[in-house]
């Protein structure tokens, strides 16, 4: 009955809950993202991230984050929103 492990989007393990919570907040919580841009370590402490997870978020390397159980879509969007916040992009070219 059990399904084969999917290739791209996998069950986020419970051990990665806080890491995914942080990526989710970077994606969807404007206030958290602002605090993170001010002081990333303090923001991550708010969410109780462990040192290894915090280092992985700071480094921003996708493969490391995925290996720790991060969800690919959250990694992608957290990174996009951080980049947009750092250098605002022009939208609606046409």
């Amino acid at each position: 009955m059990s399904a084969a492990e999917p290739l791209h989007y996998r069950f986020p393990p419970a051990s990665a809950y806080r890491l995914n919570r942080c990526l989710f907040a970077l994606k969807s919580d404007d206030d958290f993202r602002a605090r993170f841009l001010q002081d990333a370590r303090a923001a991550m402490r708010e969410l109780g991230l462990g040192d290894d997870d915090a280092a992985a978020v700071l480094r921003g390397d996708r493969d490391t984050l995925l290996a720790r159980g991060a969800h690919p879509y959250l990694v992608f969007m957290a990174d996009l929103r951080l980049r947009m916040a750092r250098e605002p992009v022009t939208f609606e070219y046409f």
Partner: protein
Amino acid sequence: MLVGAFACAHTPQLLARPGTEDRDLVLRVHAAFARVKRRLEALRADAIAIVAGDHVEAFFLDSVPALAVYVGAECAGTFGHYRYRFPIHEPLARAIVEQGVERGFDLCYTQSAPLDYAFYVPLHFTMPEPALPIVPLHVNVYLPPQPTPRRCFEWGAALGAIVRARSERVVLMCSGGMSHFPGTDRYASPEFEYDRRLLDTLREGRGRELAAVTGEELDKMGNIELRTWAVVLGAVGDAKADVYCYEPSWHHGNAVVEWAL
């Protein structure tokens, strides 16, 4: 009454229109959306029941429902400088959740959750004037384990029966797809041939074949969001698809479809 059934791409770049996109392609998808909007006006619909897959916006890992119904008074979402706010068709939403549960679907309901872009991107372009109330229907697509395509199809069959027994003129719209792989190294290489073959199947009214596809196949083909299409296919049965457009961008197979009821 079920008066119409549509599928709409929801690629956020269609709305944001950044410099990375092919302008002519985007405008062709906009033209297809405009056609949907005119059809919704011609169909004199009373409500749009929109089936979409949340992009981890309304629901995080604190609560990952397989299937959910939004039964609040209104729902809202924000995208850049856009502020969306849609009234909910409450009697319809409530009938769907009550009768759905009675029919053995283990629906989650919510009276308050942020609205994901999968809902408001298609509505941005297709909402008729005057605007209609909506019923947001969630299908888990991004957080495994997701409901099987077969179960989505069955839910759509029940949803179709519930809607057909209502006095309101209801349009069903599914949002999503086609092939795309956000967050993976496949992002720039979707499975366009898979999409085209599926669209051929739908043109021939063989939509129920999607119910037999496995979740693993959808994941492999970048088409986890076709679960929302499976719901609408369950409701329309063997109706034939009129493909308004299929526009493969560098990251998405953008399709707009109407089913001839």
